[in-house]
C-alpha cells in the first residue's frame, strides 16, 4: 500500500499582517505617522510562494535568528469557502518596517513549515483555539485565536470580496508577538513544535544556512 503523503499546499498561500490584537495595539501609536499615515483599512496580505513550502520535520536553513510564526491556515474548498484548517509555521526574518512587502525576509526557501494533515473545520472550535509553541521542549508562546482583529470567517469574507480563494488556496490568520511585544525568535540548532487541540501538530528544526 502506498504511504499517504504529508499535506502540502495545493494552491497559493496568503498571510494576514497585524491580525492579532496584541501586535496591532503595539503598532497603533505609530499608525498615523510616516510612512504609514493611517491605520490599515483593509486586510494587509502577503503571499508565501511555493519555494517556501516545507514538510513537517524539515530542517530549515536560516541566515540568522528568525521570527517564529505559529498560525492556522484555512484551506479553500471548491466553492470558495474554507473547508479545512492546518497548522503552519510562517517563518520570517525580523523586519522593522511594514511599509513594503519584505519578499527577501518572508519568501526564503523552506520558510513555511506545514503540518502533515489538515482537519475539517467542522471539528474545530475556531474562535477559541489556542496554538501552543514549544522551543527545545519548553512552552514559549500560546497564540489565542480569540484575540484576532478580524476573526477567521470575517477575514475570509473580506478577502473574498476582492479575490477568489480558489480550491486549495490557503489563508493564514496571522501571527502574534510575545506578551511584552517582542517577536518570538529562534535560531539555528533549535527545535520548534506547534500544537493545538484537534489539529495535527508540526515540528521542525532550524539549521545554519551555508553561504
Amino acid at each position, binding site marked *: 500500500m502506498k504511504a499517504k503523503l504529508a499535506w502540502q499546499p495545493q*494552491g*497559493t498561500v*496568503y498571510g494576514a*499582517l497585524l491580525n492579532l490584537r496584541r501586535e496591532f495595539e503595539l503598532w497603533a501609536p505609530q499608525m498615523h505617522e510616516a510612512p504609514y499615515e493611517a491605520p490599515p483599512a*483593509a486586510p*494587509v496580505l*502577503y503571499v508565501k510562494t511555493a519555494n517556501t513550502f516545507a514538510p513537517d520535520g524539515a530542517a530549515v536553513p536560516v541566515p540568522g535568528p528568525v521570527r517564529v510564526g505559529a498560525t492556522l491556515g484555512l484551506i479553500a474548498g471548491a466553492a470558495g469557502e474554507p473547508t479545512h484548517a492546518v497548522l503552519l509555521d510562517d517563518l520570517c526574518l525580523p523586519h522593522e518596517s511594514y511599509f513594503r512587502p519584505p*519578499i527577501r525576509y518572508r519568501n526564503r526557501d523552506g520558510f513555511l513549515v506545514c503540518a502533515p494533515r489538515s482537519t475539517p473545520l467542522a471539528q474545530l472550535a475556531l474562535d477559541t483555539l489556542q496554538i501552543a509553541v514549544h522551543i527545545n521542549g519548553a512552552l514559549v508562546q500560546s497564540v489565542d485565536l480569540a484575540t484576532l482583529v478580524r476573526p477567521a470567517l470575517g477575514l475570509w469574507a473580506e478577502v473574498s470580496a*476582492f479575490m477568489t480563494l480558489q480550491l486549495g488556496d490557503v489563508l493564514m490568520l496571522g501571527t502574534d508577538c510575545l506578551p511584552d511585544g517582542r517577536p518570538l525568535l529562534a535560531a539555528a540548532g533549535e527545535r520548534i513544535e506547534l500544537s493545538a487541540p484537534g489539529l495535527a501538530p508540526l515540528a521542525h528544526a532550524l539549521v545554519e544556512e551555508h553561504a
Partner: protein
Amino acid sequence: MKHARIAWGGAIHEAVEAGGALELRTPALRGRRLSFDEVVWLPPLAPTPRARTILALGLNYADHARELAFKPPEEPLAFAKGSGSLTGHRGFTLRPEGVRHMHYECELAVVIGREARKVGKDDAYDFIAGYTVANDYAIRDYLENWYRPNLRVKNRDTCTPIGPWLVDAGDVPDPMALRLSTHVDGQLTQQGSTADMVFDVPTLVEHFSSFMTLYPGDLILTGTPDGVVDCPIGSHVVCSIEGLGSLENTIIGKNPIQPIPAKR
C-alpha cells in the same frame, strides 16, 4: 516560436503561431489551423505542479518612480501575487464600483524555464524559457502604506491580463531593448523601452534566486514606465511589446445589465 493556450471546440489546447493563424498541437487535431478570432485566449502558461510564483516589480523604471513622486529604489522592490488574478488576451477586467483611479501597467513578463537557485547575472538568460506581455492593473483608490501596494490594489480577479503569446527566449535577441507602449481606445498613452529598467532582467534573476528558488513557469513582471492613465468602464486597452505582440483587454463594470462591449 510563439506559443498560446486557447479554449476551442470544447477543450483547452496548446497552439503555436503559424502563418498568421493558430496551429493546434493537440495530437488528435495536430496541424489544424484556427483564426485568432474564433478562439478564447488563455494565459499562455502551462499548468505548474505547485502554486506558480509571480513576482511583480514596483518602480522599476526611473520615470515611473518620478511620476509617482518616489525615488528609484536601491534594491528591487517586489511583491508577490497569486495566479488567480491572471486572465487571457481579449479578456475582460472588472472595474470595482465607485473607484476613481484604475490604471494599466504594461510590463515585460519573464517566464522561468528551469529551476534557478543562486544564479549569477551572467548565466541568468539560460534560466529563462521565454517572454510575454502582462498588464498589471492597479486600483489606486485602495493604496495603503502597509506592505504597499498590497493585494487589494494588485491581486484582484481579472486584473492581470497576460499574453497573447509566450515567445521562446531564443527568438528575443535582446530583451533589454524592446519598445513598449499602451493604447487606450486607440490613443497612445504610454511609451517606453525595456532599456530604461532600473534593474534589468539578469539582475532580477540573480537577486530573487539569491534567496528563493524559482521554478519552471514562475513569472517575473518587470515593472512599467510612466504614462499610466485612468481607464473607465468600456476602455479598450492594448499593451504592446516589440517582438512579443499586443495584449488586448476591455474594462467592464460589475452591474450585470451593463452591456459587455462588442469585440473590436
